[in-house]
């Protein structure tokens, strides 16, 4: 992989770091601010995975392995949060 790609990836990461600091100051409301912060973090992670970890230029098998961990993480978060978030919708005695 040519050096210029690594330099571009690093500059992209620094830009996103500045972006996340600036976005944190915008008064957009808790949900939206959190969402933007996580989206920027995910973009940074993708740059690291695709370029620094060479996944963009790796074989299909490696790409599937790289995706697997994050996909299962999303399943774990999705199902757990679906539980915790809807608990308050219909309070039941004895439940938090």
């Amino acid at each position, binding site marked *: *992989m040519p*050096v210029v790609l*690594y330099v571009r*990836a*690093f500059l992209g*990461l*620094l830009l996103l*770091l500045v972006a*996340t*600091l600036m976005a*944190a100051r915008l*008064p*957009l*409301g*808790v949900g939206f*601010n*959190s969402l933007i*912060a*996580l989206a*920027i*973090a995910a973009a*940074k*992670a993708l740059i*690291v*995975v695709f*370029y*620094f*970890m*060479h996944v963009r230029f*790796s*074989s299909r*098998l*490696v790409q599937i*392995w*790289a995706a*697997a*961990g*994050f996909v*299962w*993480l999303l399943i*774990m*978060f999705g199902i*757990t*949060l679906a539980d*915790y*978030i809807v608990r308050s919708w219909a309070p039941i005695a004895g439940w*938090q």
Partner: protein
Amino acid sequence: MSAEIAHAPALHHEHLSHQFEDIEQQRESYVVGMWAFLVTEIMFFGAVFLAYTVYRVLHHAAFYEAHKQLDIGLGTINTFVLLASSFTMALAVRCAQVRSRRGQVVFLGATLSLAGGFLVIKAVEYSHKFAHHLFPGQAFHYPDAAIADQARLFYSLYFGATGLHAIHVIAGMLVIGAMLVRALFDRDAKQDYMPVEMTGLYWHFVDIVWIFLFPLLYLIPK
């Protein structure tokens, strides 16, 4: 007979182990094996992130108040330091691929120094937290009694997550140090570059964990 096979042009490679068909298959096996390990690491940190997320959803206002004692300046500097260390690590891997011994020594050394810098800044932050009784131990004391329990939870998660991350940084430094020694002794730059590549994959993973920890802990919106 065996000498003939060993010198068959398409099959022979100086770093090829006998159980692999060719060097490409061997390299892919290395990378897949490393990613399999990283998947277990993703799930390991994933549980920590999930615990944090659940409690932040439940106690958002208190977490917002408690996070104000964290130093965003130091957190930002540390994010920059770790991103820079990932960049120098990527360059070290490239130097290993093109067999530049000097480049490897320079960039592995730079990565090691940046990782050390990260730990020093982290130690400064930790010592501030201890001084302000924010470590969730016997001496924990939070000024606002109404949210002291939630603040304690926040700081338990803060120390737990960043502490686990710091242990990973230390482990990474040991391996990077080993690669640095290996490069120093590799006078003819003849060694396989894959161990450096594997070290890089691990180090970039440690960087990714921090990429998520930073906004979650330091940049909680009101």
